[in-house]
């Protein structure tokens, strides 16, 4: 049984201009100890998906429908106190901006200790001792001193390490990381990615990684799900997805990516463009969400939304025209 099994997740928001279908019928699963990356551009619904998993969507104006089964239990049926016992304990989350997601008036130790005291009933002393242990684990120098410091005294990279320490404090089974390295410089990003890979081996938690950076995906994901305009358009193991993307959107995304080494290969000096913009989610989209920008689109695409079809081993894509087997793999 999968650790997390999401079926037909729909997260809609009521707005003055109409219903915004931020996530519109997305299904996926995460196995124990697995790293699933959810990629897509701004507005594709990847962050709303992660917030929905934690039930952090304010209702109203939001509304979550479908089912989110975690270890067989449907999280959407739980009461708020039951949900609170899961957040930060079995499922924890790392956010993008460590400056705004840490409390500026509490010491780092107190914030890490809070989850431990709440979920594991440790007393103040024990929680602080464990916080020092966690800071050591995430590679913060002088943990005994840092544990008494406030977030503003730490650098961006160190704050993100504190966030990770806090998320891992209760040995979660599932870690949701929403753009964990986007706000960091590349040399610091490299440190944090290495730390995440290292900790994953040691702690063994499953990870749902939300990101727009395909480089980060290639680095740490095992399986990738591509979202576009609130829907899932493709899913495949990471090597397979990069080697033979089937959906025209994924192909476009990979073609539009400037790559290091372009001066070495003397590759074409022009990037592939995906013409046009992401459609507004405030109107119901009949047909394929990508039809307006797709080079292959026909009337069929504009009228009927393609379902997710198997296009290869463990490889699914939602496209009427994507080839079943790679033409020349």
């Amino acid at each position, binding site marked *: 049984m999968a650790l997390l099994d999401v079926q037909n997740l729909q997260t809609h928001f009521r707005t003055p201009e109409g219903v915004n279908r931020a996530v519109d019928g997305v299904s996926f699963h995460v196995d124990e100890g697995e790293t699933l990356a959810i990629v897509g551009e701004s507005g594709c619904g990847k962050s709303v998906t992660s917030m929905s998993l934690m039930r952090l969507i304010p209702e109203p104006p939001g509304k979550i429908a479908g089912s989110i089964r975690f270890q067989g239990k449907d999280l959407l049926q739980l009461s708020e106190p039951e949900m609170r016992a899961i957040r930060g304990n079995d499922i924890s989350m790392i956010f993008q901006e460590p400056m705004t997601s840490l409390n500026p008036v509490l010491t780092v130790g107190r914030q890490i200790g809070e989850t431990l005291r709440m979920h594991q009933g440790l007393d103040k002393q024990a929680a602080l001792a464990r916080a020092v242990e966690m800071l050591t684990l995430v590679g913060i120098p002088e943990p005994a001193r840092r544990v008494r410091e406030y977030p503003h005294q730490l650098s961006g990279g160190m704050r993100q390490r504190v966030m990770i320490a806090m998320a891992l404090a209760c040995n979660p089974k599932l870690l949701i990381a929403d753009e964990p390295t986007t706000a960091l410089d590349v040399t610091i990003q490299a440190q944090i990615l290495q730390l995440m890979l290292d900790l994953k081996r040691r702690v063994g938690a499953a990870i749902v990684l939300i990101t727009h950076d395909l480089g980060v995906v290639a680095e740490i994901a095992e399986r990738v799900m591509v979202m576009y305009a609130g829907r899932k358009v493709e899913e495949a193991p990471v090597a397979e997805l990069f080697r033979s993307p089937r959906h025209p959107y994924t192909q476009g995304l990979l073609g539009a990516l400037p790559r290091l080494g372009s001066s*070495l290969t003397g590759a074409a000096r022009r990037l592939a463009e995906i013409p046009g913009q992401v459609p507004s989610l405030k109107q119901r989209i009949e047909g394929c969400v990508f039809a307006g920008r797709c080079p292959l689109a026909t009337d069929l695409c504009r009228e009927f939304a393609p379902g997710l079809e198997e296009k290869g081993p463990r490889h699914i894509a939602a496209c009427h025209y994507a080839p079943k087997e790679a033409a020349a793999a």
Partner: protein
Amino acid sequence: MSVPLLQVNDLKKHFPVRGGLFSRKSNWVYAVDGVSFEVQRGETLSLVGESGCGKSTVGRAILRLFDITAGQVVLDGQRIDDLSPGGLRSMRRRVQVVFQDPFSSLNPRMRVRDILAEPIRNFGLAKSSAELQARVAALMDTVRLPRDALNRRPHEFSGGQRQRIGIARALAAEPELIVCDEAVSALDVSVKAQIVNLLQDLQQEFGLALLFISHDLAVVEHMTHRVAVMYLGKIVEMAPRQQIFTAPKHPYTKALLSAVPVPEPGADRNAIILKGDVPSPINPPSGCRFHTRCPFVFDRCRTEEPELRSTGGGEWVACHLKAVPEVPGPLGDPR
């Protein structure tokens, strides 16, 4: 040899830090501390580095958005760092800017038509209102926006379209140099490709020089001619595109390049993971500023600051090491 379009000589910009009682000046941030480079006509020079390295400050100093602490900025043979406000006007026409955030750099209360007409009017580039309107319409074509969008306001456009408006506004003044301060950093991949291609086309078409300030090394490699790598207010390495990306010399450049995640799963990478954080520019390390994080540090680095020296072929490196140890590049062994 023709005069370079832009020359920057030993540019310094120190910002005061105010603190304590009565906001006394207590310290200085050495944001840019002795930077020199040239930009030729029609050339793209990229300034790269991590946050706080001073790359944006260099851009702003060239635009004269503030007075510099020391050094010279020379545009086409004429010093512009000490120009009077009147003298600045003509320089402002020749050097334009595109900012990172297309949401905060366009006036939300102006229609696109007025945003584009303003620089043309300011610099007296159109003789009649008919010519003004024609120019504004032509600018929309240049940046590939529909002409019927001229009466809309910035909030009605997406991020990529707004960046096109920002570029059109910069072009309106018919500049020779455009400073692009993280101009594509806030954009999504597919839109970023559109804007990068547009900038390359415009450079070809108008012979523009670009000072491209960015932290995104893959984009830089894709579109630049030369690169200057900055660290804590100094240039540590400057070289033509291919040298920087295939055979970086400075240990920091190597680490920076190797840290970029490569979109190839299972790629054989030997990332050099630097330890620690960038030191504060308020109290930069003695000697070589990179010595606190450099994997190849030795005694001389701690006390003596390395000069930016030429190693031939247009390459400049500030490092005491004669030959920097070979480390495989970001894509594993050189193919």
